[in-house]
């Protein structure tokens, strides 16, 4: 060995190559290791860029043009579309409609919280109730629209039920009456999304350790006290998150009113109007501006929420 070593040594090399050899192999493998993850990441990134970022960039571009969705020439019009979004009375009306859904989402959260709390205590057939409450969320939005369309049409299921219990004075045209229509549609929305809130609350409540309840009971706390001082503080971040989702959710209501009324009779929401502007009125530029505005509102609301409650970890987005 001692004889051979110098012979293998390359001229001018100060370090014994046999000592470096393993190290070099490691570097090579490290190099490959460094590339491989990127190759894996490349696939989703390519998909994401192609189907999300490029269209969004296009949307920003369209929003400053007068494009009608067809013409090969797009003229730059500056911020005119954005001005229209906030000045045309018809465009402002849709924000008013959103308020109905915002109001409804508070009802929805209260109901969800109520059911989640009850079902976190000892209840018979607990899983059955959970299933029943969560089930509407699993149904396709189009199906829900059609189900309710039949249910609330004049002489439909709701009217018959009200007649059967002698409440015929309450009966009205649930979607035909412009005073009632937005309450009706918001109620359908509550029916559909309450299950999701409910499951989120239930999961959060389950993280409260059982001993605390026992301790509280020993101290003479009743169920209301337990809810007020144990459960609510424990699930505060989730409730906060739900508020945020409610605000952006009430602006982006779409399926239910679109299927049930096609946005007619004063039930037009922001998203329905955006779609109509783009595909019926051939104002793709204006519609893109509306979409950008919606995106901006959601971002701002999220940012405010994070500023207001910075200490709370919200990771359920």
């Amino acid at each position, binding site marked *: 060995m001692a004889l051979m070593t110098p012979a293998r040594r390359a001229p001018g090399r100060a370090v014994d190559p046999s000592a470096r050899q393993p190290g070099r192999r490691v570097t090579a493998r490290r190099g490959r290791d460094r590339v491989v993850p990127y190759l894996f990441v490349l696939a989703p990134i390519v998909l994401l860029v192609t189907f999300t970022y490029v269209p969004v960039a296009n949307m920003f571009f369209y929003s400053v043009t007068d494009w009608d969705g067809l013409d090969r020439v797009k003229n730059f019009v500056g911020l005119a579309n954005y001005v229209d979004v906030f000045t045309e009375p018809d465009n402002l009306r849709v924000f008013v409609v959103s308020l109905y859904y915002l109001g409804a989402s508070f009802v929805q959260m209260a109901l969800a919280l109520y059911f989640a709390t009850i079902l976190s205590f000892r209840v018979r057939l607990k899983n059955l109730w959970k299933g029943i409450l969560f089930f509407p969320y699993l149904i396709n939005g189009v199906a829900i629209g059609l189900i309710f369309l039949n249910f609330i049409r*004049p002489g439909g299921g709701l009217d018959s039920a009200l007649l059967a219990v002698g409440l015929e004075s309450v009966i009205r045209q649930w979607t035909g009456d412009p005073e009632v229509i937005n309450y009706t549609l918001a109620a359908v929305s509550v029916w559909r999304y309450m299950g999701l809130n409910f499951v989120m609350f239930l999961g959060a409540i389950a993280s409260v350790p059982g001993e605390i309840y026992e301790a509280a009971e020993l101290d003479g706390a009743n169920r209301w006290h337990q809810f007020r001082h144990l459960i609510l503080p424990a699930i505060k971040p989730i409730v906060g998150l739900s508020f945020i989702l409610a605000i952006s959710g009430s602006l982006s209501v779409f399926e239910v009113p679109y299927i049930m009324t096609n946005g007619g*009779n004063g039930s037009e929401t922001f998203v329905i109007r955006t779609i109509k502007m783009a595909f019926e009125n051939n104002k793709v530029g204006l519609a893109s501006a509306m979409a950008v505005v919606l995106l901006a509102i959601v971002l701002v609301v999220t940012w405010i929420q994070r500023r207001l409650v910075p200490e709370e970890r919200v990771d359920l987005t």
Partner: protein
Amino acid sequence: MLLTRTTRTAVVVAATAAMLGLAACGGGSAGEGGESGAQDMDPETCGPAGDLTVLTWRTDLVEDGTFDDYVATFKEAYPEIGDVDIQGITDYEGEVKTRMSTDDYGDVLAIPGSVAPDQLSQFFEPLGELSEMQTQYRWVEPESFEGLSYGIPVVGNVMGAVYNVEVFESAGVTDFATTPEEFLSDLEAVKAAHPDIAPLYTNYKDGWPLTAWQSYAGGVSGDPEYTNGMTTDEAPWSGGGDMEVIDGLLYDVVAQGLTEADPTTTNWEQSKQMLATGQIGVMMLGSWAIPQMQDAAEAAGETRDIIGYMPFPAQVDGTFHAVAGGDYNLAINVHSSNKCAARAWIDWFNHESGFSESQIGLSPLVDGPVPESLQAFIDQVELVEMAPAPEGQESLFSDIDTESGILTTSPDYRMKIVDDARSGARTKQQVFDDLNAAWSEAIQAVSGG
């Protein structure tokens, strides 16, 4: 264009760039349409051969095999033709519009309504000089620009209203109403005789049936220049003009409770059967609706004769007028590689297929036949063919229309009138005032800018 592609490749990951490159291609070919130059398109001399793709909005005729028969007969006439791919598209307007942002939108297709006249040359191959086409075909003007014609209608429709003969007769109404007021009292009589039915059905929920109302414009006054005149009329909804009469009738009929009780729950498919079985008195629809209603009547066990067709309730000097116009116009994709066969299909469809007669419509040919079941109606009315826009102003009406936000061709505009008539949120006069204000503003904006 090539430059754009290479710079992008340098910046973005290879795979993405390939897709972007495609997008750049689609956008890049702007303005240089018709790269294939002048192809010989005379079926007599160019020798139609090869494969052909045809887009159609009549999905019902694709499903029931009618189009298979058309294709078979077409191939008999032109044996060199290969595969004819008929693509029925349910949401024709929406889907075709999207496809038109690429080059791949069939060889033969109907021109979607949203294409403005000055955009025609970007997408479609000129079929000939307008003046020459007019000697052979009717209603080619709307899809023409600067003296060139881009599309030929497959069938002509007249605008009246489909009604249930039995319902009206049993209510003691035997003559066509000659004024909107008389029409309203006829509907009152229908309502009195049949309290449970909807004397007039708006099909509000589906929206598009309401757009038919716009087609009466010009028929009320019998003035072929009516829509052209609207481009300078700052108050079309006044002085007894067509727009005022049409929208006034819609407002009144709804306000007086002569329509369905809850318009938000209407259903188009069901409405056909309801008309046939006497649960609906009348629906304001073009003559294209007649065969569908007759089919529904037959399916419901009634006779086809129960469906009648009446003119819009307005007369000028004792004569009814009905607007006659083309349905969708067939055109050739400017990017088509087989324009010869495409032209052969269009000519064959208009001359040989018998499509217009089977649809109980007027033939697009100048000397074409009038179908039997429409003859009685035609005898009572004077047909009005709307005059084309003067040269250089082909897009003026649609520009003003879009700018005003009214969009006379959209369902929304008339849905709003129905909403107001039901709730009383705006009086009829307020509706007209708002419309006039928006319209005159748009005229100024378009002519000023």
